[in-house]
């Protein structure tokens, strides 16, 4: 970037600020790299503490011989890619069909809160909805189905992984949709659409042919993050796949937790394999991108003006259906949290009670407190770092290169288990396992990229004339930062903070590894119970999991309004 874009004296005055972006990346990526090495060494037989003192391929041999590994690997690959493809298609078709209509805003209002709810909570809601003893069959039994006992069918969880795909779609659709919304500001969407429509293209074909090709590069990194996440997700898979047909990630966690310590080597090899699977999935996706691009070019050149009828209804239906399942599942579990007895096939509890909340209050208190301070601390630290990075970028006039952005995304693209496994050994070495410092660091890895994603565009979009006007009035850069930029950006800053908090609330694997069982959150407690625990307790945990981030988003929305009112009240 040109140095002359920087404000006068900017690069010299920025001082320590110039070091912040590099430092931020080093603090994050150093331990990730070390964690990867810590996983790689035992995968090749080297872990002296467990008697592995020579490099060998034995861990890979035992991994390959383990029954069902190939199936589990394939299941991870297929479910992850399907979930991404379905989510992306739904979002693209919906945007094409609804861009510029009132549906756009409405759907956003429904999807944004779903994004705030942790994956595990949505997955557990889905499990209750679709299980053979679930809410849907309860509502239809026995009057319609004739069942007075739950049918012996593997509806949810299931051995094929379609519940896993469905749950991922429920969560990735809102994510990709909001990412698309952000990216739409960076492409001349409205102008393109006006031109396309004046040439006779209908809304959908116009959007798909003129906006999507320019939009896609902007959301490519988030899409890659979705691919990597979906292929390697552990908590959702634990909840929605059956015990004998797990995904690779679930198997790795099982081995890592096995009393037979020799399985640690196999777990390390599995964690490496998980990395390979993610790479393979990304490679497949990139190949599909290329194929889609050349097919798309042919399609655009042919010049068809109309999309098949019903496609927009299908996109809207798919999107709303996924959102509805998400909401219904959460409502079902909320009802559970107030139930005393709710046996099959009753559609609603036969006895109600507040005891789940009152009697278990002290059991809920500890994970609740950990979740809250962990979320607040990691979001606050990440927010400060991101603000400093963005400010450094404006003062030095140096935008992060594409490569730096990729680095920032590393924790989202490298499968969590691949470096968390090794990072745990590091944490133990530093005496930080199960210590809040290690846990906050582990969460920061995932919170920081999302806060950066959320805040970078509004920060860069702020009209630079405000800062220049303040400078003309004699304000120094820090004063401009504190008195002009921060107040004007209060709303996006608070929203970014809420995003970071929501990400932290939902993290499972980093909490399990860095918390070392001593620090538990609502999410780890809920996932531990998901397999067969008391649904009433699951209900209370899920309600809290959802309420916490939503409360913070509500605060983020309301605070700027109240503050403005207070300011104008005082001054007016």
């Amino acid at each position, binding site marked *: 970037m040109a140095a002359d874009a920087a404000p006068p004296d900017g690069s010299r005055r920025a001082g320590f600020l110039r070091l912040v972006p590099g430092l931020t990346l080093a603090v994050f990526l150093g331990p990730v790299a070390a964690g990867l090495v810590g996983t790689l060494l035992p995968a090749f037989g080297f*872990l*002296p*503490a*467990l008697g592995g003192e020579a490099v060998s391929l034995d861990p890979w041999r035992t991994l390959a011989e383990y*029954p*069902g590994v190939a*199936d*589990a690997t394939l299941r991870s690959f297929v479910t992850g890619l399907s979930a991404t493809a379905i989510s992306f298609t739904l979002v693209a078709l919906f945007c094409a069909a609804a861009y510029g209509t009132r549906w756009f805003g409405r759907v956003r209002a429904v999807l944004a809160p779903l994004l705030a709810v942790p994956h595990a909570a949505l997955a557990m809601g889905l499990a209750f909805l679709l299980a*053979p*003893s679930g809410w849907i069959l309860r509502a239809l039994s026995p009057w319609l189905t004739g069942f*007075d*006992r*739950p049918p*012996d069918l*593997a509806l949810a*969880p299931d*051995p094929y992984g379609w519940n896993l795909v469905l749950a991922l779609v429920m969560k990735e659709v809102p994510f990709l949709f909001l990412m698309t919304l952000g990216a739409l500001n960076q492409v001349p969407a409205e102008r393109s659409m006006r031109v396309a429509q004046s040439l006779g293209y209908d809304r959908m074909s116009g959007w798909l042919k003129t906006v999507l090709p320019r939009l896609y590069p902007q959301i490519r990194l988030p899409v890659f993050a979705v691919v990597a996440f979906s292929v390697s997700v552990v908590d959702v898979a634990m909840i929605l796949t*059956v*015990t*004998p*047909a797990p995904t690779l990630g679930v198997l790795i966690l099982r081995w*890592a*937790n*096995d*009393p*037979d*310590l020799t399985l*640690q080597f196999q777990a390390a090899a599995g964690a490496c394999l998980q990395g390979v699977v993610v790479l393979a999935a990304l490679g497949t996706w990139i190949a599909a991108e290329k194929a889609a691009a050349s097919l798309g070019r042919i399609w655009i050149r042919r010049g068809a003006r109309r999309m098949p009828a019903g496609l927009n209804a299908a996109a809207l239906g798919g999107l709303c259906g996924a959102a509805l399942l998400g909401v219904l599942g959460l409502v079902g579990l909320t009802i559970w949290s107030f139930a*005393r*007895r709710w*046996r*099959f096939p009753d559609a609603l509890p036969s*006895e109600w009670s507040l005891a789940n909340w009152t009697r*278990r209050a002290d*059991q809920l208190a500890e994970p609740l407190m950990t979740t809250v301070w962990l979320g607040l601390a990691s979001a606050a630290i990440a927010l400060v770092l991101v603000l400093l990075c963005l400010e450094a970028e404006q003062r030095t006039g140096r935008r992060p290169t594409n490569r730096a952005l990729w680095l920032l995304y590393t924790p989202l693209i490298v499968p969590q288990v691949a470096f968390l496994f090794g990072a*745990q*050994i590091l944490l*133990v*070495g530093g*005496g930080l*396992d*199960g210590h809040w410092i290690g846990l906050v660091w582990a969460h920061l890895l995932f919170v920081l990229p999302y806060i950066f994603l959320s805040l970078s565009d509004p920060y860069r979009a702020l009209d630079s004339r405000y800062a220049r006007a303040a400078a003309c009035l004699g304000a120094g850069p820090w004063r401009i930062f504190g008195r002009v930029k921060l107040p004007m950006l209060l709303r996006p800053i608070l929203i970014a903070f809420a995003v970071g908090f929501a990400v932290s609330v939902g993290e499972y694997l980093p909490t399990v590894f860095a918390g*070392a*069982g*001593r620090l*538990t959150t609502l999410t780890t407690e809920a996932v*531990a*119970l998901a*397999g*067969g*625990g*008391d*649904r009433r*307790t699951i209900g209370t945990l899920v309600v809290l999991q959802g309420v916490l981030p939503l409360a913070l988003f509500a605060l983020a929305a309301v605070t700027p309004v109240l503050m403005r009112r207070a300011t104008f009240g005082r001054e007016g």
Partner: protein
Amino acid sequence: MAISKIWRAALAVGLALGGLPAAQAQSWEETVAEARGQTLYWNAWGGDEGINDYVAWVGERLAEEYDIELVHVKLSDTAEAVRKVVAEKAAGRHADGSVDLIWINGENFKAMKDQDLLHGPITPSLPNYALIDVAANPAIELDFTIPTGGYESPYGQAKLVFIYDTQTVSEPPASMAALLDHAAANPGRVTYPAPPQFLGTTFLKQALYELVDDPEALLLEAGDNFDAVTAPLWAYLDRLHPVLWRDGKDFPSGDDALIRLLDEGAVDFALSFHPGKASSAIAQDLLPDTVRTFVLAEGTIGNTHYVAIPYNAAHKAAAMVAANFLLSPEAQARKQHPDVWGDMTVLSMDRLSEEGRAQFDALPRGIATLGPAELGPTLPEPHPSWMTRIEASWLERYGS
């Protein structure tokens, strides 16, 4: 009787392998004094609310009596604690470790003992250990046939029981063969947790005891005889699996999952390792009050669980005091209370004072809990090598 023969054989094997080394140098008073003000990290499975409440109560009592602050590190699998100690050893943290006390038995104990990860022997130093008549109950020092060597202190006994709803099943099966008949007549209504979940493994061992020709073979390490000895088990499972819940393609995660399935009416039987589980589930509104407990006529598998102290524990004195407190009549009687845990005590009644015995006599019994006589004979755990190989073999046959 065949069972007492099995126990005698188990004892002979155990005595041949173990024996208690000499007691520690520090006096008990010194240990108690050193423990004052320490914070004790007890790593214990945290998946049951009743058990968590009990641990919390132990914490209150330790604070009152000994000025020890107890922190319950809730594990979903005891192996997590083992791994932590291993990781600490790997990182060179040979003192000041993060785990002070572990609720442990079986495979995990064997793994830690084999790798010299335990502090001890500890039981010779515990005053309350004298309340156990080891001569009358030799099984207490055999953890899954592995001699404890005093490296772990017992604090409860468990036994496999079955739970059924009298509203759905009139005559519960009295043997594994009868269970198969019931499953065949009612497809999809019988299931068990998948090994290596311990209840699932216990179910397999239970079947094995009934089906093998010579149960004594199970007390020695599994060797070349593995295939021959276990052949009847696989034949049994091959017939059972097609008529299991979900055709044997999915399995519940443990006794809580089974109790949920029983309550929903999805299955006819739940399994548990806690004889008081049915009563406590009724008390927690998790099962209707029409459920009852039953055991198999020829006995069911039972075992003892223990607490052990890692070699690098930071607060060994507090851990010793806690282990001793867990052996007090007060703590044992509370543990056996059906509303609390419903576990069987490890203490020998004839070693207790009048006052101590009275605490046990006063315990109520839940409506669905069997009395000591009705609980039937207890079968010993086989040597862990059987378990490891059965789990691997099961996974190969029915894993996916």
